[in-house]
């Protein structure tokens, strides 16, 4: 049973436009959510996170929105750039003790930003 779902395997947008990547989760115990970006032949890199006590977190061009009642989060990238082309993973965890953040990942969405 998949607890973190990214239902869009791929997304294509034009440079300068907004990219919106979506993620749904089923485990109501999740209280911390993250987005990772992955380029081919590299390890995933952390992008942005949000705690369940918030509904929005912004970092430069990246904003994550959390709708707890819908068990849904989204990542907005504005404006999109060709260098943003990568696989984006949504991840979630149940409040780890200390610094134990055992993450559950979605299957990923391949974002392609066209020049």
């Amino acid at each position, binding site marked *: 049973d998949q607890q973190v779902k990214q239902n869009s395997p791929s997304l294509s947008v034009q440079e300068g436009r907004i990219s919106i990547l979506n993620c749904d989760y089923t485990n109501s115990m999740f209280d911390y959510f993250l987005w990772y970006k992955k380029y081919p032949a590299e390890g995933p890199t952390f992008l942005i996170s949000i705690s369940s006590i918030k509904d929005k977190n912004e970092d430069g061009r990246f904003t994550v929105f959390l709708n707890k009642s819908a068990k849904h989060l989204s990542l907005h990238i504005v404006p999109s750039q060709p260098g943003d082309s990568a696989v984006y993973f949504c991840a979630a965890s149940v409040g780890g003790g200390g610094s134990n*953040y055992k993450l559950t990942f979605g299957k990923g969405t391949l974002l392609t930003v066209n020049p």
Partner: protein
Amino acid sequence: DAGITQSPRHKVTETGTPVTLRCHQTENHRYMYWYRQDPGHGLRLIHYSYGVKDTDKGEVSDGYSVSRSKTEDFLLTLESATSSQTSVYFCAISGANTGELFFGEGSRLTVL
């Protein structure tokens, strides 16, 4: 960048042979993780460690064992490799109290 080194980066082996992947960190972090990435499955947790000699299973631990005899090293062993274990394996460490994991560059394993 977090100091995480995985070795080997690429390995081809035959079914039934033992394989050990090594993860080495220079950050002195307590928690270390092994994930595998497969098309259509994303990243799945195999095993993790919360200290020297302290390990626990993740969601896809069958066929894998781990060991951690030193803080800096976390080994993943496939006792008898199968073709279903062909995958890219990622080691990760926890950022201290930041809630995020830092990943190594991955080890691509092909089991023929």
